[in-house]
């Protein structure tokens, strides 16, 4: 996959509009991201709305929330900027602030199992 000097980053996307998942993953393939892990998740607002009646009167503060997806991908650092641009492009489709939140974390070591 790479030489040992190549630097990697963990790219994390919190996708608050699950409908956009196909577009993100299609974009990953296009850009050259070779793999990702996707988890179904719930945001704080959704949990507060559904499970914490004490805050029911303030539920409107948190907006509608239909669940989210967490996308994790370790990738060469050089791809990260393209992925940020991709997420911007995809999120613009729905014109909703917070549709996708993303960040990167440095990866100290990355090894694939030997075949």
């Amino acid at each position, binding site marked *: 996959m790479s030489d040992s000097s190549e630097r990697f980053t963990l790219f994390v996307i919190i996708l608050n509009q699950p409908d956009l998942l196909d577009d993100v993953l*299609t*974009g990953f393939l296009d850009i050259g991201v070779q793999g990702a892990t996707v988890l179904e998740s719930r945001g704080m607002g959704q949990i507060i709305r559904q499970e914490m009646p004490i805050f029911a009167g303030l539920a409107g503060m948190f907006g509608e929330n239909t669940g989210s997806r967490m996308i994790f991908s370790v990738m060469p650092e050089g791809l990260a900027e393209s992925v940020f641009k991709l997420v911007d*492009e995809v999120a613009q489709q729905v014109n909703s602030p917070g549709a996708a939140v993303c960040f990167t974390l440095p990866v100290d070591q990355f090894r694939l199992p030997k075949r």
Partner: protein
Amino acid sequence: MKLSEHIRPDLVWVLDTPGSRDALLRELSGRVSGAVTSIDAEALYKSLLEREAKGPTATPEGVALPHAMMTGTEENFIAVALVRGGCEFQSPRVKKIDLVFMLVGPQDKAWQHIRVLARLARICHDPTGLERLRAADSGEDLFKRLLEEDARHV
């Protein structure tokens, strides 16, 4: 992945002969073979039909993305056709398609094949972009518009 690396002007057409899916794939296979002489038209046609048999490549946006991995080419390339009047594509979910992106590539470049397909899927998912492509009045014009749409995406 940029489409510009995989399209060429002599493989982009505007057609006025809708016909059936099979007739369209046969015609496009022949045209591709005419331009890329190492490709066998009949082998390409059969390979495309085999892929379609696994599930139609037509999308709800009225686009078809037939694709084949085969011998006769060392690189992935795309042939594009705008079919005036549209064409049924034997898909239960899609009545007619009028834009065809045919992707042909070698078997040892499957990852690149997937990436080109993903690029096409992104471009074809933009309804405004598809409108601009459908407004093309010639193959040359369609080729130019494709490059413009390609440039609109990361």
